[in-house]
């Protein structure tokens, strides 16, 4: 019948177009590496992993490396269920997740790969704030804060209301900031304007003279012409967030470490081992390229030793 013929034509059309766009198959490519390395996890760590993967693929064309962004928690769920080889994590593994890993017989190694310097940012027209002490930050951001105007922080500051911006309350960035400044993860004043999109945060702060917010160093760097970073005084004087100050640990307490968790069983596969080796050798340079901060060289070297000796 006419309809079956049409249905047949449509199906053929679909199958043909799908196969036209199919990748070449062929698993053995002589001496070149093949196989798959499955990665997922934090959207914060993602840019680093992506950069490493891109460079790795330039030298190893036949390895297939999907990199997901399900979030640190989502990544751990997949990791502990043995669905992925590597989890990008912007925080350390939590107890419940550890338990799950044990239950499923997943043996893993935790590798630190970079630092993120959380930057507190304000509008460029804000010429009264140069630095803030950690105590002042706590006073401003704590859940029972009485601060409403700049003058509530330091009396010589303007008598104008502050507008508070923050990254999403479900993000690792938010978790880390609240824990470091307010002592408890998730504890923050109630009248914040959260945003899941850091670009929009930067835009919002850049357009509001009385705005204050915080997010990762990469977003500050990219928008340095639209926003200003506040120097943080942790007791030894105001420190500006820069590559050097974050790497040396001087920029405290807002430098946070970033990790990857690797399934030990996966490490046996040559493509995974090769990828990991490449990762640790190049994470430093590539992290800084995408707006993060490298660990000191010897830390990478130590971790490299760790995975190379691990059979």
């Amino acid at each position, binding site marked *: 019948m006419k309809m079956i013929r049409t249905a047949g034509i449509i*199906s053929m059309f679909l199958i043909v177009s799908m196969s036209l766009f199919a990748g070449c198959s062929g698993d053995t490519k002589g001496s070149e590496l093949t196989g798959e390395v499955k990665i997922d996890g934090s959207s914060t760590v993602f840019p680093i992993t992506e950069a490493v*993967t891109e460079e790795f693929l330039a030298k190893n064309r036949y390895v297939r*490396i*999907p*990199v997901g*962004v399900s979030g640190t928690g989502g990544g751990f769920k997949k990791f502990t269920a043995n669905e992925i080889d590597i989890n990008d994590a912007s925080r350390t593994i939590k107890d419940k997740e550890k338990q799950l890993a044990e239950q499923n017989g997943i043996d893993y190694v935790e590798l630190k790969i970079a630092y993120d310097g959380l930057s507190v940012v304000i509008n460029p027209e804000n010429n009264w704030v140069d630095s803030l002490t950690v105590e002042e930050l706590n006073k401003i951001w704590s859940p029972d804060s009485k601060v409403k105007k700049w003058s509530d922080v330091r009396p010589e500051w303007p008598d104008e209301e502050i507008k508070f911006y923050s990254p999403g309350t479900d993000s690792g960035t938010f978790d880390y900031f609240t824990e470091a400044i307010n002592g408890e993860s998730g504890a923050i004043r109630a009248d914040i304007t959260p945003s899941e999109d850091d670009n929009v945060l930067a835009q919002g702060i850049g357009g509001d003279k009385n705005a204050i917010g915080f997010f990762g160093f990469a*977003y500050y760097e*990219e928008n340095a012409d639209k926003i200003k970073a506040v120097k943080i005084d942790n007791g030894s004087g105001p420190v500006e967030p820069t590559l050097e100050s974050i790497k040396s640990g001087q920029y405290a307490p807002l430098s946070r470490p970033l990790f990857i968790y690797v399934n030990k069983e996966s490490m046996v596969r040559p493509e995974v081992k090769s990828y990991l080796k490449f990762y640790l050798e190049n994470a430093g340079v590539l992290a800084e390229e995408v707006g993060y901060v490298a660990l000191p060289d010897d830390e990478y070297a130590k971790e490299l030793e760790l995975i190379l000796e691990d059979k």
Partner: protein
Amino acid sequence: MKGTHADMENNIYTDANKSSNLKSRKLMSKIFEGFFFLAIAFGIIMLIVLLANIFKTGVGWLSLDFITNLPSRFPKRAGIYSALVGSIWVIGLTFLFSFPLGVGTAIYLEEYSDKKKWFNNLLQINIANLAGVPSIVYGILGLAVFVRLFGFERSILSGALTLALLILPVIIVSSQEALKAVPNELRHGSYALGVSKWLTITGVVLPYAMPGILTGTILAMSRAMGEAAPLIIIGAAGYIAFIPRSIMDSFTVLPIQIFNWTSRPQAEFQNVASAGIIVLIVLLLSANALAIFLRNKYEK
């Protein structure tokens, strides 16, 4: 007699009043026609503004390289190839699952089921309700059933099955409406000639209803092409630098790649994202064009 005479007197459509009354009614008609036209114009203007915006920011970044390149962290090198292929694969597979299932269900509900039975009523309510379930819930379902339970992992198959379930209710509902609109005389004529039920459906009813069915399917597939949330839950990834070889491969689709680009700090990625949106819209338009072509073929 008296009644009719009084009626005629009271009737406003007397010759004396007719012309002025008609004029004002015609004027009302014209005024409302204007309003209704404004309604359509509003929709069209919004579309033009939307597209102009995207075009302005994206067209400069559109090139053959952009289409054939794989994604990259460098805006200038970033390309949409893997997402484009992923979208084609997923949509193709989604269609193959959802069209027969959807039209088949609609045929059952309209042509075979006894409407008075409570069970068929329940089926109907169920489908109408599923049409409104948020796409993200389908994502959660897909993750639990296809990825984990069936073990398909985060493959094109899982994604397509999830999307198929998502658009199934829409296809069913619009196909049903199309089937309802087929005049019963056509069916009865066919039965009278001794044609069996199934052959009547495929030979007479379906061809008549096909334009409506295709309209519903077009709307549904368009929706599927633009969906990001459920596939994000499934795990359609953020960085896929390879072309799928089979339906079991990991994948990404255009909306997710675009969304990924918009959340990057570098300003140029907004332009790259716009270029991606243009590609997506072109794909959409081609699918629409194909369906319109088919619809016109059937609309005698």
